[in-house]
């Protein structure tokens, strides 16, 4: 690892100040991606600002909506009993048990890995990302591969998921990394149906209009059968070319609906 300077502020304001003050400061949460990236010499932040001392951990619910603090770990979400089953299942399927004990929802969303699970949930549920500066709606939050609407000195505080009538997530695991080769989150909230796909898009997580239309008309796995999922704009790598990923989107969409 390259030398770095570690900070553990106790207030959001202090954390923001450290981010602004650092030459090339990075936010450290669970560290499951950042530290491994640093270990491989693929990142060299001058300063690490640990946000785990800011009191951003925990889950609250009100009127069917749930708010998950940014530094809540995947294991805590999975075992909380306070979030919709689809979210609980999603959290329980991230990484492995040890990674889930450290990795956080805020870290996952800030990193926005194109194969991460949480972005699918946030986008499909139409969740809101609360930050140190503002509230960002899901449709505005994701900008592309490892890119979000967050400014460099902006810290995720919490994520608010609205109540969902139905929600389901199905993931086909990458055989090596165990990230999503394709993951599809389907959600029916306040009358609108949203379908988000992770692991497949060349620009990261995306909504699928065809699937949304079909499921709006008929919330059933069968409704997905008639939909053509195009391979255009989908990633191709040794574990799945665009055509295969397109197939998986359809299959996972059906399974997500069935699980909802």
């Amino acid at each position: 690892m390259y030398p770095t300077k570690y900070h553990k502020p106790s207030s959001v304001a202090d954390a923001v100040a450290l981010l602004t003050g650092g030459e090339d400061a990075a936010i450290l949460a669970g560290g499951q991606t950042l530290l491994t990236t640093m270990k491989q010499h693929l990142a060299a932040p001058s300063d690490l600002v640990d946000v785990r001392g800011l009191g951003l951990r925990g889950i609250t619910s009100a009127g069917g909506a749930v708010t998950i603090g940014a530094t809540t770990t995947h294991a805590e979400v999975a075992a909380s009993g306070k979030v919709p089953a689809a979210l609980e299942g999603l959290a329980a399927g991230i990484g492995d048990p040890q990674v889930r004990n450290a990795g956080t929802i805020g870290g996952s969303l800030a990193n926005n890995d194109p194969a991460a699970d949480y972005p699918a949930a946030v986008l499909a549920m139409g969740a809101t990302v609360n930050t140190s500066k503002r509230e960002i709606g899901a449709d505005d939050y994701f900008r592309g591969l490892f890119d979000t609407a967050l400014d460099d000195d902006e810290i995720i505080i919490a994520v608010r998921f609205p109540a969902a009538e139905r929600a389901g997530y199905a993931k086909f695991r990458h055989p090596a990394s165990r990230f999503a080769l394709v993951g599809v989150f389907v959600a029916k909230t306040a009358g609108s149906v949203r379908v988000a796909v992770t692991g497949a898009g060349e620009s990261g997580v995306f909504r699928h209009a065809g699937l949304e239309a079909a499921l709006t008309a008929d919330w059933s796995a069968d409704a997905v059968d008639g939909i053509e999922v195009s391979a255009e704009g989908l990633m191709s790598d040794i574990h799945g070319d665009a055509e295969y990923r397109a197939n998986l989107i359809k299959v996972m969409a059906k399974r997500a609906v069935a699980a909802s």
Partner: protein
Amino acid sequence: MSTGIGARVKRKEDKRFITGRGKFTDDVRVDNQAYAAFVRSPHAHAKVKGIDKSAALAMDGVIDVLDGQQLGADGIGNLICGWAITSKNGSPMNMGAWSALATDKVRFVGNAVAVVIAETAAKARIAAEAVAVDYEELPAVARADKALAKGAPQIHDNAPGNLIFDWELGDKAATDAALKGAAHVTEISLTNNRLSPNAIEPRSAVAIYDQAEDHYTLYTTSQNPHVARLVLSAFYQVAPEHKLRVIAPDVGGGFGSKIYIYPEEIVCLWASMKTNRSVKWTAHRAESFITDSHGRDHITTARMGFDAKNRIVGFDVDTIANFGAYMSLFSSAVPTYLYATLLSGQYDIQNIHCNVRAVYTNTVPVDAYRGAGRPEACFLVERLMETAARELGVSPSELRRTNFIREFPHQTPVIMNYDVGDFEANLDQALKAADVAGFAARRKEAAARGKLRGLGFSSYIEACGIAPSAAVGSLGSGVGLWESAEVRVNPVGTIEILTGSHSHGQSHETTFAQIVAERFDLPIENVSIVHGDTDKVQFGMGTYGSRSGAVGMSAIVKAMDKVEAKVKKIAAHVLEASEDDIVIEGGQVKVAGTDKAMGWHEVGLAAYTAHNLPPDMEPGLKEGAFYDPANFTFPAGTYICEVEVDPETGEVEIVQFTASDDFGTLINPTVVEGQVQGGITQGIGQAILEQVVYDDAGQLITGSYMDYAMPRADDVPSYGVHHTSTVCPNNPLGMKGCGEAGAIGSPPAVINAITDAIGNNDLAMPATPQAVWKAIQAAQ
């Protein structure tokens, strides 16, 4: 509870590992410790125009930066391949020079160019990035067939067209004639996928130079420390043997990858002398992927002919073997004498011909990996048998049965002489254990759940107990492949066994002790095994090729014979009886049929006090032996794999895996089962998960566990592991070896099962979900 041969003794070596007290090479830290980091080529093929070390040398904590010019100037020799293969036109193999640090040219991504020695590992690594190497990029080639094509980049000047050798075995004319007259010919084209061994302990070296004594010590992750010392001394001229001690302490798995002596170990020793510091290097996993030798990587086409009664009449094979950028230590033996010699499988085939072209590419060097040549042979033969059965419309198990060799010894047309076996016994045991009779009903039930269920067979044979020295010498081996042992009975009667075999998971500290406890009827606690240190153990050839039992233990038996003879002489003398009447049992050395006896420990004491020994007998009780096997051993068996495929995703679930093996005598069935389970998992890994992938420019795509899919606990089921036994006549314990069978026998069983399930025989390894899904689509 018995602790002798056949007993399920719990491992003696476990305690230090389960309590975190094992001592692996990276756990070693000595005074004056410095750390090495290598400057490696980011290009698959390039000229090295210059190396600017100035920035690195100026960095904090950097002790020195060393390069290949300095290495050469100090007389350190090139890495070599120790097995000479002659092409069919009589010319020797074209071995290109491999300097531990490249001087003129780099030939694969990861090729070491220079080394930084610094005060900490982190500082060394950062400084290595500051060494500026001026490269002139050259076109590269990663695939063996493309490397043979006209106009392909020339990798070594002395290997025109990148061809290392063009070798054949068997009678081409007779095989062609047999195929011409065949009632049916089955053809197949397949690849055997390139694998990365991935012992979980990364390779590591700690080199300690003692200036006062001009002496070197090397702690390293080796399967064969004596061979390492021999090669480092005799070929690489690092230090003469008596000035070099090699210690392989606890080693975290090898699978072949820790047989070889790599550039890193050579450079650490040399750098230790240059800097007068102890130099330590431990690979990080990304480095393992680009430096540990890879395995397999064959492209093969083959034809197998059958007569009207479905008996095999001829078998012709054409293989291209990818050797990577340099010839690794045993690379040339793998696709030749460890591959073509096993192409008869378990079958009576009169005509076999095999042609092998060995090829340089811009990839990591390829060498033996668990099974080494035999998995490639088995995969080819057993895929062909299953394919032929489908074409001929006969049961795959019955086609095998029709062709089984039934009389032993059996001389194949490809060198090997099978000494003993009962292939039908394994097939029948496996058929029963796998409940093949009930498969149709299981398939139907699976179909009702929307799953495709398939069954696949593999009846493998391999050659282990490597190897008779004169035989391998005549075939080109540069070394003899015997093993040595010393049995040291201490004055108080406890026993130390010094063995040239090396345990890195094989359980020698337990199983070797078992044969001693049995022989002298002593508590197993009184026996300890010493290995892995050239200063302690006389000499040895190490552990690979499932040889530690059949060869290593046989050497111990020979040494025990000598100890027993001396013990009996001493006891006969002291007890005033005839040697012939002396028996060893229950911790005593007795005169049979009388109450005259000495304690075992009393004999030991008598030998060392030497107060009352027979005339002319030397004091002491310590005997050594070298054992050179008379033949290879031939473990064989039948594996049956049952899978369910999800037709929507192509995902394969191994729902049942049954093994029936014949390893001859089992010393410790629990240990044997563990070896088989591990081997099968590696074989399943090769079949459905693992593959080293390079892009066309020679960049490694699968450089971490994020892309290289390792088998995990939830990828595999528990297996049914069963045994039959025909005792090997060629070694004193009747053993055949069990370390590689699982990895050899399992891949074709898995692919045969998947292709059976999906109804498309055209499926390459690894059968990833995507590959299986595409094969399903293609069949529709």
